[in-house]
């Protein structure tokens, strides 16, 4: 690669380069374009610069500099977020944490590990798997997303039905506050000391309260046994009912996933096809794990429930290879949309499980109303929907239509007593939709908390909460 001499008159760039080194800063337009959005591509803004600190002290120094000079800034990991949390709306200095990617320590005795924020989610499991352990939160982007980003978004995943989301697996954090000060919460992996639950507050704060520079996570013993079932349904209603029945029967599957017909079309057209039939309305991917004793009985019961609900075909994975194939197909589902549509927008509503048939019906109506296809790939077991609105940003007005359709999906979720996000965060995408579930007073109460940490609101401003009296504009890509 070409070595580039620092050539700029901008004193801020020069100062930041002093802190992180000339090889650890980007400021030319050509280099910045790759940072104008994350996994949410509807909004695009160029950052002022991107810096790549190597350790906490450099993060703190950069933050302190930005704080003192009133430069907006934000943290970024792999940039796979789906709600725009890492988009530099205000021309921020982007602090990329991907070079802080060490696995600092593994303590099997106490079942915990310490990682830097840029450490990739799946690498943690890969590092301890041979000793019989794993890290439970498994967002579909786990092949490449960073644990720092998982903390910011309180990421979920297919297996969070049984094991909980990121916040249930965080034991301690080292955080650089928006003024450059460094604090530690939950030192030595001992959970929060008495007082307010700061770990809980920081996890899922979407990068608005501080920048996490070190994370202590819980690791779990790998389950002794694991069985996976794939069930094809002619009617989506039958699939929804099966989900309810399985939970009502007292079974807690490790994962319970659904895909509808449009989603199946996409994954089958993409890189990891399984050979799902194209004429079914829905499929369920169900996994149970735990100690060996009793697993077979649970599987029998699940098969029985599926048959009662008119399943067309149901099968149990015969080996690890088959299981892996089913999961690769499911986990690459969002990216697979590229095979059937130029753009997509994924929503993240949560509803009570019992409302599944009703809300899916409404989503279908929204799809017809806007004339845009909507695929559904989601965590049915915990009622966490992912309607994927398919559109073409090249067609005038279609981006706006897609946004409106997505928003209506969330409204439908909120209307049945649900929420607008389960695991992707609010970011830019859903900030106006916060009004569906919070009153102005409730929102103000939350921004007051933010202001305690982020007094100047330089850190990741314009995210998470609606801007009073202003509607979000769509900037044409």
């Amino acid at each position, binding site marked *: 690669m070409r070595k*580039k001499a620092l050539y700029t008159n901008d004193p801020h760039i020069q100062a930041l380069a002093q802190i992180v080194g000339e090889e650890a800063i980007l400021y030319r337009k050509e280099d910045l374009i790759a940072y104008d959005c994350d996994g949410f591509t509807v909004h695009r803004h160029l950052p002022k610069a991107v810096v790549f600190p190597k350790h906490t002290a450099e993060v703190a120094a950069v933050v302190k500099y930005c704080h003192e000079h009133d430069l907006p800034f934000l943290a970024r990991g792999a940039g796979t977020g789906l709600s725009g949390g890492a988009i530099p709306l205000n021309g921020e200095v982007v602090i990329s944490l991907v070079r802080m990617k060490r696995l600092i320590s593994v303590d099997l005795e106490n079942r915990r590990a310490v990682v830097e924020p840029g450490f990739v989610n799946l690498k943690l499991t890969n590092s301890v798997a041979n000793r019989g352990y794993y890290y439970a939160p498994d967002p579909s982007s786990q092949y490449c997303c960073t644990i720092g980003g998982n903390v910011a978004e309180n990421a979920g995943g297919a297996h969070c039905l049984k094991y909980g989301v990121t916040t249930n697996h965080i034991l301690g954090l080292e955080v650089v506050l928006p003024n450059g000060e460094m604090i530690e919460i939950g030192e030595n992996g001992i959970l929060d000391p008495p007082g307010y639950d700061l770990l809980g507050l920081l996890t899922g704060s979407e990068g608005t309260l501080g920048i996490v520079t070190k994370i202590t996570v819980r690791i779990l013993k790998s389950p002794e046994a694991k069985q996976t079932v794939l069930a094809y349904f002619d009617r989506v209603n039958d699939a929804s009912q099966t989900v309810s029945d399985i939970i009502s029967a007292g079974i807690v599957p490790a994962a319970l996933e659904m895909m509808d017909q449009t989603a199946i079309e996409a994954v089958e057209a993409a890189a990891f096809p399984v050979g799902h039939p194209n004429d079914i309305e829905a499929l369920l991917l169900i996994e149970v794990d735990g100690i060996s004793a009793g697993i077979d009985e649970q599987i029998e019961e699940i098969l029985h429930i599926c048959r009662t609900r008119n399943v067309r075909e149901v099968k149990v994975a015969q080996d690890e290879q088959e299981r892996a194939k089913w999961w690769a197909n499911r986990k*690459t589902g969002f990216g697979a*949309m590229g095979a059937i549509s130029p753009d997509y927008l994924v929503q993240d509503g949560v509803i009570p499980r019992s409302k599944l048939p009703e809300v899916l019906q409404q989503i279908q109506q929204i799809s017809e109303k806007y004339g845009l296809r909507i695929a559904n790939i989601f965590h049915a077991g915990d009622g966490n929907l992912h309607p994927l609105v398919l559109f073409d940003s090249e067609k005038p007005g279609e981006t706006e239509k897609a946004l409106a359709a997505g928003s209506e999906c969330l409204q439908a979720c909120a209307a049945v007593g649900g929420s607008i996000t389960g695991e992707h965060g609010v970011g830019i995408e859903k900030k106006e939709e916060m009004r569906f579930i919070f009153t102005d007073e409730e929102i103000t109460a939350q921004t007051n908390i933010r202001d305690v940490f982020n007094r100047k609101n330089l850190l990741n401003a314009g995210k998470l909460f609606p801007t009073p009296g202003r509607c979000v504009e769509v900037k044409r890509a």
Partner: protein
Amino acid sequence: MNSTGQNQAKTLGNYRWGDLPDPNKWADCVHCGMCLESCPTYEQTGQEQHSPRGRVHLMKAVAEGKLEITEDFIDPIFACLDCRACTTACPADVDVGGLIEEVRWQIRQAIPLTGTKAFISKLFLQGIFPHPSRLQALGRLLKLYQKSGLQKLVRQTGLLRLFPDHLAEMEAVLPAVGEPVRKKYKHSLVKAKGETKRTVALLTGCVMDVMFSDINEATIRVLTYNGNDVVIPPTQTCCGALHVHAGDKETGKMLAKQNIEAFQDVERVVVNAAGCGCMLKEYPELFRDDPVWHEKATQFSEKVEDISKYLYDTGYERPKAELAMRITYHDACHLAHGQGIRQEPRAILASIPGVELVEMPNADRCCGSAGIYNITHPEMAQAVLQSKMENIPNEVEIISMGNPGCMLQMAIGVLKHGRNEKIVHTVQLLDWAYQKENGKEWRT
């Protein structure tokens, strides 16, 4: 270089030189980021403009008129190893490698190389590789260098220190130059041992035949041993991969046409170099705007197969002699990611009695050779090689693979890191087993 006539009037944003990049290729990318971790240059830099999705984003920005083709745009596009690992990782099958090559062509039209770079590029890509006789002459020169004592002299006098490091390293691992099979079997058919079951043509490769003629010999022996008559069409030429990777699509097309014609009378073309095989299979992409040649190229590409897959699919005789060796296998990018061939070479190795096949972690990670990348981007190539070396399992005797570029690069790695593994082509190992079985001298 001149751009092609057909598309000259058309432009796409700031791509203005005909033969435009294919917008459908980036339309598939939804920016999900699943490619990031697969990319060696992203792993090294952590910078998204050096990641597959970042590169796609940039290439699209030029088409949208948001970016001009400038030096800062060129850098990430040429820093790509073209290893295709992202193609394997991508849920939507985005052909990043293909896009990169199409855009490099545009870049070379916009900003032609100048000075020494232009001279060297022209000398090798247009002056030598397309001309088998010149390449053979170079081989003879190299042989003279090795045999005359000049090599010894140069090494002893420390003259090599005057060379850049990476060239000196390459000199150190150059294999002894043998006799090219193209010359040896000119106009003749090498008959199958016993009854003829099939007839195949062998692509001898340009560098392969000069530097690694022993592998070509081994390939011919293994093919004939398994009932194949082998023909070596005399008018065949370099596959053009290096040219297309470098953005010289014109020469690439010219070579493709020559090969398509050279092989038009055969039913099967067997290739023992992953990079060449991948290129031959992708000839249709070169002629997207030329229906006549596109059709010819499609027919041709369907005839092409890698030696490992060909043997595996048509059935080969299981060797009976034992090679008691601990072997690990390195997936050449253009075999694993480019052609989806992973299991076949492993199966061949495992079928040799006595061979203990040990999996290498991240076996399908690029070694940094990537055509001439180790010459154009020595620092990045070294960093990528370093990661590769760290993954070689303990106490293996042999690292096996199916691509000459990887073989040179891995040999440099072994030398540089003070290791002692031997680098051997997959088909050579099978050949050793057959030779041993028949009481011949089997290990070279």
